[in-house]
């Protein structure tokens, strides 16, 4: 175990996944495949308050209330209020479905400082197709309401092969609404998205066009709107760091209280996942096997171990390495130095075959959850 300088790491961010419950069914959802049947196991309000206090003690300053849909929890606004009183900067990551003007007002009074609303498409049809619910008009109305109440708003468009051509429409819509900040976030292939990859991964050509469209928009509209484009890593030659470095910046707490270095870490086999019901957050951050396992570079195997670039990307994402190669210690196969980089090339090739007859999209719902979890266990 690496215990020498763990006190140097400060978890700036606490990601509070209040619940996995969500009224939408996005086929790229980052929640686990095996969704809990009920909500009995969720942390109580008192548990969350303790977790937030412990995170503040460690130095966390940003909190993201997410899920699932965090507003499905009746105590979400109360928790925002407590977080604000504790000194957190409060961000709410929502689908906007449970929002009303009154709810927005309550959030503002409680101290919310930033609301991120996600869209699944730039028009009613696309949005309904990928969210699984007809919610476009409501999302528009709530976006306007957030702006009217002068709460900083971020719009998040999740891009994939079937809507990436809408980039310019997204940006026009965001500008007309008066958004300050827009994230054009390509789907990252974890959890549900991994199982739908053949149907979602864009071609390189599509990606280039979408990036060009974003740049053209920026050149033509020199307004106050800040638009960022996040490419999927499949077309990169180098991997991205795991959430700014495993165990350096982020703490995710799941609805049941498991504490993770990143949202998807639970997929990794053979590690015990610490839980806030058994240990304090400080104990977990500093001493748990999970957080120490991939901190720094000393865990690395070849080719990362002797690579001159190892400090830059820390060998990439551990979850992706595990998902794609079966070995959490392997070089992230996104890296073209990885001996298993062909996995990525094959995935790209396989996604380019437009086969309408193939398996349709798995939407995130209970039926598919059972089916996919069973498939994973069988493999």
């Amino acid at each position, binding site marked *: 175990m690496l215990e020498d300088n763990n006190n140097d790491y*400060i978890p700036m961010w606490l990601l509070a996944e209040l619940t996995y419950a969500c009224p939408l069914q996005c086929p790229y959802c980052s929640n686990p495949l095996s969704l809990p049947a009920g909500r009995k196991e969720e942390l109580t309000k008192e548990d969350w308050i303790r977790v937030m206090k412990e995170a503040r003690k460690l130095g966390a*300053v*940003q909190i993201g209330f997410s899920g699932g849909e965090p507003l499905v929890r009746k105590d979400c606004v109360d928790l925002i209020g407590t977080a604000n009183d504790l000194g957190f*900067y409060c961000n709410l990551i929502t689908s906007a479905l449970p929002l009303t003007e009154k709810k927005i007002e309550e959030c503002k009074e409680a101290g919310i400082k*930033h609301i991120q609303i996600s869209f699944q498409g730039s028009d009613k049809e696309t949005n309904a197709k990928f969210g699984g619910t007809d919610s476009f008009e409501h999302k528009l109305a709530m976006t306007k309401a957030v702006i009217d109440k002068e709460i900083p708003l971020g719009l998040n468009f999740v891009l994939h092969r079937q809507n990436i051509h809408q980039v310019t429409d997204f940006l026009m819509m965001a500008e007309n609404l008066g958004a300050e900040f827009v994230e054009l976030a390509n789907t990252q292939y974890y959890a549900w998205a991994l199982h739908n990859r053949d149907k979602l991964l864009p071609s390189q050509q599509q990606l280039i066009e979408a990036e060009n469209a974003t740049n053209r928009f920026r050149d033509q509209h020199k307004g106050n709107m800040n638009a960022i484009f996040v490419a999927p890593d499949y077309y990169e030659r180098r991997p991205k760091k795991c959430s700014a470095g495993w165990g350096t910046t982020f703490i995710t707490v799941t609805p049941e209280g498991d504490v993770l270095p990143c949202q998807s870490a639970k997929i990794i086999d053979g590690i015990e996942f610490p839980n806030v019901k058994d240990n304090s957050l400080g104990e977990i951050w500093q001493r748990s096997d999970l957080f120490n396992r991939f901190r720094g570079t000393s865990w690395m195997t070849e080719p990362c171990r002797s690579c001159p670039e190892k400090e830059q990307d820390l060998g990439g994402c551990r979850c992706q390495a595990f998902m794609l190669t079966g070995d959490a210690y392997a070089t992230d196969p996104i890296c073209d130095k990885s001996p298993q980089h062909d996995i990525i090339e094959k995935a790209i090739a396989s996604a380019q075959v437009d086969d309408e007859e193939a398996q349709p999209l798995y939407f995130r719902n209970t039926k598919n959850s059972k089916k996919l979890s069973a498939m994973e266990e069988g493999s």
Partner: protein
Amino acid sequence: MIDFDTKKFHINPNYRLQFEEAQKCHVLLYPEGLVKLSDTAVEILSRCKQAVHKKTLIEDLQKDYPEAETLAADVSDFLEHAASESWLVVVED
């Protein structure tokens, strides 16, 4: 941009300026991010919690730091930077 010659300004009400024990410094928090502030930045920003004119701000600072010769220019530069980052917002009268 803020017209510092005519307008009053204050810290963006959606941002938070606070001292952080774990970091041992002041930070300014904004949507999904933060900056750690230098002592000088804190000295200036903490006087912008209420609406203030640049002229008054500089006079006040100069009273407390009479020996700082380039103070007016330094504060001006800082204010321009702070406005461009939206740390400060204009007060419409």
